[in-house]
């Protein structure tokens, strides 16, 4: 984020003084993968849009430019987090839409999508409208609500996608819980086509994952913690991809963490199936070894799994090869809780 060297905080643009129409972000490291750009230079903005980019040099700017010194800073497009838990309504003691949207803005995110596993569940147009309005009031990162797939996220009856999209929902998901019923997933993918929205799934086969605390492997065996096999994720991944092929719907796979999932997603993409996926920073940078010594912070940081070394390396490959189209932080506030 750019900030004035002299003033400390950036002017808000409300002052009458001169009001230069153009802004120059000078001398920052400008990174934009979509333009294959990673270079130091000056970014010229006009009316809030990028007008020009000058590689590092001694360009001088007249009085109608407001120059912001970005030396030593990274200048990038605003990030979009497609998978956030803002916890409001229901758990305002942990996070509110306002605190989440402000935290996102501070971290360089200009838009976030709020998952619907709130209390009560965001499964109708009124609830979606509430999230949208709270996001607007927060006046930080834009907040895009995601509606539930099923009423109450109970995995039984479809929620009203049409009305939720009308109220501002950008996708549907039962995230926090997997869509256990293949029939419900199929119906959701079909029905969502009318509204052009993706169906995002928390991929975790519930009978394989039941009671699990971490990735199944040598670390779970040593610690005596119940493991979740990677197949719990992969079985749902291939099920969802096959259902997307059958229905022509767009499936979005949440927080992928295993090598097998990446291979299955690649398989689906090669066949033109509408599948997108996301990965979390901690799945790329941490391994199951962080759970050693009963590090309970590591345990609660991820529902599905922090995987083995090999798996993590593979998910990193996914990031580089572009198998995954979106990225996220998986940002979710958790209340620290000691076992009783």
């Amino acid at each position: 984020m750019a900030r004035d060297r002299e003033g400390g905080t950036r002017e808000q643009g409300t002052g009458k003084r001169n009001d230069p129409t153009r802004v120059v972000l000078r001398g920052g490291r400008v990174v934009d993968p979509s333009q294959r750009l990673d270079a130091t230079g000056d970014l010229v903005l006009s009316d809030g849009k990028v007008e020009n980019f000058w590689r590092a040099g001694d360009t001088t700017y007249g009085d109608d430019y407001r120059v912001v010194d970005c030396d030593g800073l990274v200048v990038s497009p605003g990030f979009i987090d497609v998978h956030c838990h803002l916890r409001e309504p229901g758990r305002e003691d942990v996070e509110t839409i306002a605190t989440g949207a402000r935290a996102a803005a501070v971290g360089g995110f200009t838009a976030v999508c709020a998952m619907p596993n709130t209390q009560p569940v965001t499964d109708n147009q009124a609830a979606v409208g509430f999230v949208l309005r709270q996001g607007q009031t927060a006046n930080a990162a834009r907040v895009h609500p995601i509606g539930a797939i099923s009423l109450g996220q109970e995995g039984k009856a479809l929620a009203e996608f049409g009305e939720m999209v009308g109220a501002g929902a950008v996708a549907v998901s039962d995230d926090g819980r997997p869509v256990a019923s293949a029939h419900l997933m199929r119906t959701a993918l079909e029905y969502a086509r009318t509204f052009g929205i993706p169906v995002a799934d928390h991929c975790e086969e519930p009978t394989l994952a039941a009671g699990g605390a971490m990735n199944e492997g040598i670390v779970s065996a040593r610690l005596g913690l119940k493991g979740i096999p990677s197949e719990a994720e992969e079985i749902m991944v291939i099920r969802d991809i096959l259902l997307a092929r059958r229905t022509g719907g767009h499936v979005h796979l949440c927080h992928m963490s295993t090598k097998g999932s990446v291979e299955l997603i690649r398989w689906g993409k090669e066949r033109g199936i509408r599948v997108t996926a996301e990965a979390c920073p901690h799945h790329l940078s941490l391994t199951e070894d962080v759970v050693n010594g009963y590090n309970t912070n590591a345990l609660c940081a991820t529902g599905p799994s922090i995987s083995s070394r090999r798996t993590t390396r593979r998910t990193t490959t996914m990031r580089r090869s572009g198998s995954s189209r979106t990225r996220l932080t998986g940002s979710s506030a958790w209340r620290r809780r000691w076992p009783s």
Partner: protein
Amino acid sequence: MTAPLGKDLLALEPLTPEQIRLILDTAEPFKEISERAIKKVPTLRGSTIVNLFFEASTRTRISFEFAEKRLSADTVNVGASGSSVTKGETLVDTARNLEAMRIDMVVIRHSASGAAQFLAERIESNVINAGDGTHEHPTQGLLDLLTLRDHFGTLEGRRVCICGDVLHSRVARSNIWGLKKLGAQVGVCGPRSLLPNAVSELGVEVFDRIEAAIEWAEALNVLRLQLERMQGGYIPSLREYNRVFGVTRERLERAPRDILILHPGPMNRGVEIDSDVADGPHSVILEQVTNGVAVRMAVLYLLAGGPPELAEAAKGGSDR
């Protein structure tokens, strides 16, 4: 002086072979105390020890209590029911409140893996793990080692097979680490649904058939098959378990050598072990229980900072 074991005894996995041998060697002179008419020495007089048992236990709780009392410590037993845990107090708050009453040690049994370590990192008192979830049960592992050493002299190169529900067994984990550190070869045998998926990475031989395990082993440590494993869908029936994996006299008679039989108790006679075997000539199950008191006395003594070389002398100061 600093105790040679550190502050706590949480697991056997992090211990060195020397530390394990030290505990076993320290247990030797303590064995004799329990054979006296007046089974008491003043070694831990004035120490206060709390036994926090959040899970049902007969053998381990009473064994610890005898060990503490025979060393003259003052002890209090706290169970989950009838304590403020039922009112929603957290484990740490319970322990901190006890600590505020100036205690010296906590012995904890808990259903969650890692509970003992969690507590140890948050209180000043010495913590002894008396079984945490499906993680470890270090004093059980130590008493098994002591019993095997009594019979074999040394564990170096000996072949010991752990039979049954290794997946959910804290006894199995403590045994695997302890035996390997003392140089024994370790086997495990049971239905694959009751073995960890990554079992071979633990550095043990895996036997799918109990007959093969019996042919290989010099000692079997037969684990208790918990009835809830059948309800959990890990095995179809106790009857079939006995037919396929039960340690029976018929199977042992076909072994190429006499096999020492251990069991951590409580036994399900007719399921994992037949009565003929449990009560047979090669069963050391009750010796394990006897050794349990001595091993726990040794652990209490060492954690309290007692110098190992004085263990022999310590018992001399009896009230006799």
